[in-house]
């Protein structure tokens, strides 16, 4: 009996001591919420970090620090020497890369992020036009915590599918897949604001091209099964409004309700795909002269929209071929139809610029507003 008591005592002592093993008390550490990497002279990488410190009065202060070093860990150690509290990277939400660094390759940076178990794989990655340092260090009038701000900016836009999603996991997944490339949102500082300014295309870990913000809709549409998102289109008005006073183009805005995207491999050699997109949408905005109560007119609008979208998607598809960056996953579809032995000699990024695709878009306007 007595022996048992001693034993229990010993056990509870070790269990409680475990609590002292490695403490990370919130007030005594500083949290890195945002890191930006820039290319510096030679092979060095310049890291700029947003550090959030929480003091007992529940007010958090934000400071930015920047340091240059060969490895990102080295930069972190140097930063540590300049902050009063130990740096912790577990709350990292966003990692930014300067355009120049992105163009020279992100392999090492991404690999480092992935190796570190502290960093969550749902961290967002993005490319910044120009350098990240001036963007992070600028004192904005309206933004108090730029780390949190950028996280929210990316998060809500990605959730609403107004930007391409680029969590660390997705980037790594596509980076290591020989049949797919990754893309990241492109950010830009515009005066007092930061905005998503497009999509950066990557090939083999290097940024090779970009498309402007207006094209994001189509990029997302093609790379993912689209759920919600608003699209603005300009369609020729000739057939739709017969007695139209103004000739030319008709502005239209729709809201996607349900979209189904399919890639079908129709021929292996040469690789040829059928892209079919079926979109059910809701009409949000159209010229008041268009009689949308008329079924025939709606049919015409749908047809014109489909045609316009096909053109746009074709343009974006051609662009991705031109920069040889298969961010849409054609390669995966291709691979999923071939056996192991057939794939042996296939180098997808040599094939991709030459693949053919037939695009077919089917728009279905199933709802309009409360007023005709």
């Amino acid at each position, binding site marked *: 009996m007595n022996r048992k008591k001693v034993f229990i005592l010993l056990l509870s002592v*070790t269990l409680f001591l475990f609590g002292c*093993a490695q403490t990370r008390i919130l007030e005594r550490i500083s949290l890195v919420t945002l890191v930006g990497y820039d290319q510096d002279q030679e092979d060095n990488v310049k890291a700029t970090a947003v550090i959030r410190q929480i003091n007992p009065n529940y007010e958090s202060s934000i400071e930015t620090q920047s340091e240059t070093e060969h490895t990102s860990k080295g930069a972190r150690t140097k930063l540590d020497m300049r902050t009063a509290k130990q740096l912790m990277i577990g709350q990292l939400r966003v990692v930014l890369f300067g355009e120049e660094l992105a163009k020279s390759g992100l392999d090492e940076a991404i690999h480092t992020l992935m190796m570190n178990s502290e960093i969550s*794989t749902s961290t967002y990655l993005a490319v910044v036009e120009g350098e990240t340092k001036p963007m992070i260090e600028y004192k904005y009038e309206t933004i108090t915590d730029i780390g949190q701000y950028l996280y929210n900016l990316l998060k809500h836009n990605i959730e609403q599918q107004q930007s391409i999603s680029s969590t660390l*996991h997705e980037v790594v*997944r596509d980076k*290591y*897949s020989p049949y797919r490339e990754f893309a990241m949102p492109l950010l830009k500082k515009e005066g007092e604001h930061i905005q998503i300014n497009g999509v950066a295309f990557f090939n083999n870990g290097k940024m090779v091209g970009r498309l402007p913000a207006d094209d994001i809709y189509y990029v997302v549409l093609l790379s993912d099964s689209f759920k919600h998102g608003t699209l603005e289109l300009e369609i020729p008005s000739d057939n739709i409004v017969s007695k139209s006073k103004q000739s030319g183009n008709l502005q239209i805005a729709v809201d996607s309700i349900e979209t189904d995207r399919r890639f079908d491999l129709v021929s292996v050699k040469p690789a040829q795909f059928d892209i079919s997109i079926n979109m059910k949408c809701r009409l949000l905005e159209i010229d008041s002269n268009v009689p949308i109560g008329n079924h025939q007119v709606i049919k015409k609008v749908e047809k014109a929209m489909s045609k316009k979208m096909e053109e746009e998607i074709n343009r974006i598809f051609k662009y991705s071929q031109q920069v040889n960056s298969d961010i849409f996953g054609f390669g*995966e579809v291709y691979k*999923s139809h071939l056996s192991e032995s057939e794939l042996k000699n296939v180098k997808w990024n040599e094939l991709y610029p030459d693949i053919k695709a037939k695009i077919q878009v089917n728009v279905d306007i199933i709802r309009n507003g409360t007023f005709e």
Partner: protein
Amino acid sequence: MSKTSQISNNEKFNVSLVFFIITTCQVGVGIHGFQRLITQQAKQDAWISVILSFLFAHIAVFFMVKTLQLYQTKDLYEIHEDLYGKYVGTLFNFLYIFYYAFAFFVVLRNYIEVIVTWVFPGLSQGFIGITILLTVIYAFTGGFRVLVGIAFFSFFSIIWIPFLLWFPLEFAHYNHLSPVLATDLASIVKGAYTMTFTIVGFEILYFIYPFIKERKKAEKFAHLGLLATLLLYLFIMLVSIVYFSEKQLERTIWATLTLFSVVRLPFIERVEIITICIWLVILLPNLCFFMWAAYRGASRIIKIKPRAFLSIFFVIMYVGILLVQSRYQINHMNNFFSQWAFIIVFIYPFLLYIFAKTKKSIKNRVKNH
């Protein structure tokens, strides 16, 4: 043989608990990262390898139960002595004791590695080892029925895993799964072979069998236990394939934990940290039963008191933890263990059954004459 130790009725447990013991003894540290090894062999057909490996497991359990039914109240150690005689039997028993001690160590060391990599990089491995060892020894001193109880409760700390895996499905690319059956059969079988490390544990049936109340039903529950583990592993494997790209999965060391790391609940941001800590409860039946099986064997060979056994065991394990330090050593150890486990768990039961059956029939014939 009159040496069969009598098991009193209040030491026995209900047959349905076999289900929990089998499942919880199987789910251990292998589940953290088995996807990687199998994908390296079987590519997108890795999930077929998982099913195949369980097919073999079911066959192995079938032979195990058949062997045990020949002897009814005896466990494997006693069967060995009966079959091979005292000296050779002891040698075989010694191999099994060593196997279980090794299995215990493998589980312990791998878990410590996970803790040190994910949660506490700076913590001494010996300290974590002592804490876990003390916990296990404490459970062990409670007696066999306590161990069965631990297995039962541990099962409920496993069943939340599938629910957590719905979150990563948000990023699923289902075309990673096709083409189905494109890898050649040899690779799929090789993949099934690498499952050994993850699937073993059910051979504990050899030792708990005499403790079961209604032995006739034991086989059914053992197979059900395997089936439950199969469903869990299969689901994890499928989610991993659709979530990771192939090359990425081949580079991800603990894919299951990486799957968890994308889950972000409003009140827990990093679920995998909590998961790793809860894993101790999942591992506890593994450790307890392996230790218990080793003790059963040791106490048959030499008259050893539990306390003396535990002290020696503790010291050996602690020294082991201090010796095996690097990731390279751990990988090496795991490979060695799985090769050995394959023979012990999948091949030996079959041979043992044939041997036992022939011996029985020869004996009967001699009697009849």
